[in-house]
């Protein structure tokens, strides 16, 4: 693999950029792999990457029915944070956040991780208490956050109206090392690194069946033929339920549409990410200058990648109230992502009833920020059969009544 650097770009510029290789190789599937990962989104690719990097397992194929990074990896609002309340969540999201810090260097691919700081606004007394509790929990979890007052919020984000007539800003939970990254680059960087380790990334390859013998997985049927494997990781987000059905078990998952939008680009005016859960909106400004805005999810199952306009309306309304200057900006584009949510809104990283089959799904609206941590943990689970990062995220927790509920701190899990 040709290393990327300013020097390499300069050298290539002198020869019309003819020397750049494919970022990832295009190969036909082999007959058999040690591990097959289904789903070449961020989570699937990261799982493959850490299987190779941390456990030396490189006879791996990542199968993708569309194009890699084409699902929620490329359809989110790119927020990265780890200020979660519950221990298991804080552990995996902080693992992810810390891996984002060095991801560009690890992958030799600039994913533009930008720890520009993130504020979750408290706009009711209930939220004030909830976020203070989260700050206390974070202090014990090794997650750096702090509770800040309204004046500090205003300093960090001067365009905010902190004394709106309805929900004045009472303070916020601030994570200085939270921020954003370039979402597509995360998928592309992992794909390039996986390919460099000799793994096969096979696009346009849809899995149509899971083959088993004596309760153990032996391979998959795909649109490009049957492929054998010893272990199978299902990392297919919204389609997890459909794939689980192929393998003969059920999951506590529902797929719903999540709305997002961007404005036209304007000159930089907002250096932090702001989330306002009371009024259901969050906003940051991309390096291109667009205001990136996320909203709510529909309450009904939906696979169409387009959602309902009234959520956009609710979100924009709230953000115009919070950031009055955006009223005369224009919405450039809106889109929907299909997110998979579980019964407690926390993910599943788990063994399954089928020996050798592992599942990683249910990230809901929080998937992007978790990618490296999720891949790291899933790789450990698949390689060793156990990981402290995934223990609490078992699919069997629902039967035991042992939930991981993040909504309790008034923090909507996105």
């Amino acid at each position, binding site marked *: 693999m040709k290393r990327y650097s300013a020097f390499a770009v300069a050298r290539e510029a002198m020869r019309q950029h003819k020397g750049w290789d494919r970022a990832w190789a295009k190969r036909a599937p082999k007959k058999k792999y040690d591990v097959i990962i289904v789903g070449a989104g961020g989570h699937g690719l990261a799982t493959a990457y850490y299987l190779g990097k941390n456990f030396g397992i490189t006879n791996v194929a990542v199968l993708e029915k569309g194009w890699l990074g084409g699902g929620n990896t490329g359809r989110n609002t790119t927020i990265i944070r780890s200020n979660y309340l519950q221990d298991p969540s804080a552990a995996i999201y902080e693992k992810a956040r810390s891996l984002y810090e060095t991801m560009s260097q690890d992958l030799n691919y600039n994913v533009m991780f930008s720890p520009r700081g993130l504020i979750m606004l408290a706009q009711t007394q209930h939220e004030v208490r909830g976020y203070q509790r989260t700050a206390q929990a974070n202090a014990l979890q090794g997650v750096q956050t702090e509770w800040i007052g309204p004046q500090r919020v205003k300093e960090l984000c001067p365009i905010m109206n902190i004394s709106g007539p309805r929900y004045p800003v009472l303070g916020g939970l601030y994570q200085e090392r939270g921020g954003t990254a370039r979402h597509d680059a995360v998928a592309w960087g992992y794909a390039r690194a996986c390919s460099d380790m000799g793994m096969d990334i096979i696009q346009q390859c849809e899995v149509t069946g899971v083959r088993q013998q004596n309760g153990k997985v032996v391979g998959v049927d795909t649109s490009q033929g049957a492929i054998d494997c010893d272990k199978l990781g299902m990392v297919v987000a919204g*389609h997890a*339920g*459909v794939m689980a059905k192929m393998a003969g078990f*059920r*999951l*506590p*998952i*529902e*797929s719903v549409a999540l709305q997002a939008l961007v404005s036209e680009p304007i000159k930089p005016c907002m250096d932090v990410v702001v989330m306002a859960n009371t009024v259901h909106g969050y906003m940051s400004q991309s390096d291109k200058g667009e205001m990136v805005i996320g909203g709510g999810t*529909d*309450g*009904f*199952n*939906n*696979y*169409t990648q387009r959602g*309902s*306009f*009234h959520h956009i309306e609710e979100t924009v309304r709230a953000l115009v109230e919070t950031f009055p200057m955006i009223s005369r900006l224009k919405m450039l584009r809106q889109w929907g992502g299909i997110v998979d949510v*579980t*019964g407690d809104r926390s993910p599943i990283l788990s063994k399954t009833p089928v020996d050798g089959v592992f599942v990683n799904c249910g990230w809901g609206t929080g998937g992007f920020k978790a990618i490296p941590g999720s891949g790291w943990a899933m790789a450990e689970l698949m390689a060793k059969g156990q990981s402290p990062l995934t223990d609490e995220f078992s699919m069997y927790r*629902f*039967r035991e009544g042992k939930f991981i509920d993040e909504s309790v701190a008034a923090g909507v899990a996105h």
Partner: protein
Amino acid sequence: MLTLHCPYCGVDADETDLHAGGEAHLKRASTGSSDDAFEDYLFMRENPKGVHFERWRHAYGCGKWFLAARCTATLQVFGTYRAQTHEPPQDIKDAISAQRPGWSWGNFR
């Protein structure tokens, strides 16, 4: 932006008048049920890409809960019906069969 016909008051209700209530025809598992049955009832979901049965409340309208047969891939609505039933009425099933031959959902087909 869905429009669903409320079988109680006859209004074609805008999505903003409605409240979605999740999967329909769940069988309540109460005291005496197994852990499996209880988990199934509360958490396991069909979540199909295709024909689905779900609950809706005409929240801003007559306040009644009704059930809808809807395709989650195209958003086509095969029909809506009153909630006081344990399985979809035959005419709804026929309507689905006409459009999606060979469909199945849970134990219904």
